[in-house]
């Protein structure tokens, strides 16, 4: 006769976190396992980062070769921004010694989802040392007062 041990709450929580880690890993791989170079649109997806502070969200984007006066940051909706910049010169694969792909790129472009509620119309943008910095104030959420 087989004996089945009842799973403890600990086991269930552990399993939940293991599954969650696997899911995050798969999600991350899906995000990363695609080329940053889009031949059809002639665009390169730049590296970016998001920092959430208690008062604002800071998005930074690395824009090598970006022509400063062509940088455009456009809200797509309440939580997504589109970033686009023309490059000072066209970049071809063979600039990097790559001969098995063909294509040239003249634009850096990406879309970023903001993970918390923000006042997107109040964003401030600056460009320093090739890094685009977008600061967006967070919307004030009402906290629960201590009774």
């Amino acid at each position, binding site marked *: 006769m087989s004996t089945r041990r009842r799973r403890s709450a600990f086991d269930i929580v552990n399993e939940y976190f293991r599954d969650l880690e696997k899911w995050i890993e798969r999600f991350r791989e899906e995000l990363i396992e695609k080329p940053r170079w889009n031949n059809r649109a002639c665009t390169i997806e730049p*590296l970016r980062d998001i920092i959430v502070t208690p008062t604002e969200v800071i998005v930074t984007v690395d824009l090598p070769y970006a022509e400063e006066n062509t940088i455009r940051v456009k809200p797509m909706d309440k939580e997504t921004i589109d970033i686009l910049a023309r490059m000072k010169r066209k970049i071809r694969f063979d600039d990097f010694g790559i001969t098995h792909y063909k294509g040239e790129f003249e634009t850096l472009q990406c879309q970023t989802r903001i993970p918390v509620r923000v006042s997107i119309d109040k964003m401030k943008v600056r460009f320093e040392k090739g890094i685009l910095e977008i600061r967006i104030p967070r919307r004030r959420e009402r906290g629960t007062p201590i009774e």
Partner: protein
Amino acid sequence: MSEEVRIIEKKEIPPDAVMLFGFPDVGLVGVIAASHLISELDLAEVAYVDSRLLPPLIVLHKGLPHSSIRIFGNHGVLLAVSETAISADTIYPIMHALIDWGRGKDVELMVSMSGIPVQDRQNIKKLEVFAAASNPVTLETVRDKGVKVLSEGYMVGPQAIVMQHCANIEVPAVTLLAQCFFKYPDPEAAAELLKELTNLSGIKVDVSELLEKGEEIRLRASDMMRRTQQEMSKMKKTQEYDIPIYVS
């Protein structure tokens, strides 16, 4: 040497060299510095790593296959460099094998080149370079050369293994860390690090071309940076921002 990791020598290795390490980490500072050293000092490939712990990956240069982790050398310098992010699961045996190999070649000093991330890096005008050493004598030498010492904090990644293993096997080692971006390739930080390397070891290298080609390097290195971010996250790299509890 670990049986899982073999180092295949292609040329005779002279003794008493300074062995440098440039591995993917924050800002790719070590890799960018290594790449510049190879071209500036005209370093040739002298050995490479062969291991089933590495992913099934080769790097093609001029149509020929190369290991992703190679050792270059010339003029009393050995330089271990990786052209791909090394996974957190395999970094220990790989680093140990390289350090043990260097010790077998009577390397006189090991120098790990990397970065230390700073917030709002884009607003910093003059980047600072810090150092840590594997023993008190080497640390004193670092101080005498005027290099700022990273006295308290956490170190995560290949340089942490260099420090720990070199301390264990009593090989003098220094880690140089230039202030840099966490997630973006940082050629300017690599240039500052190389200036401090010249000060510390006497290895002379002109960084003007590195600075001129900054934008090209940032674009070229962005795929490697993206993959390195993934491995840094697995290594809990952000722990370097933490304040350690004092245990003497």
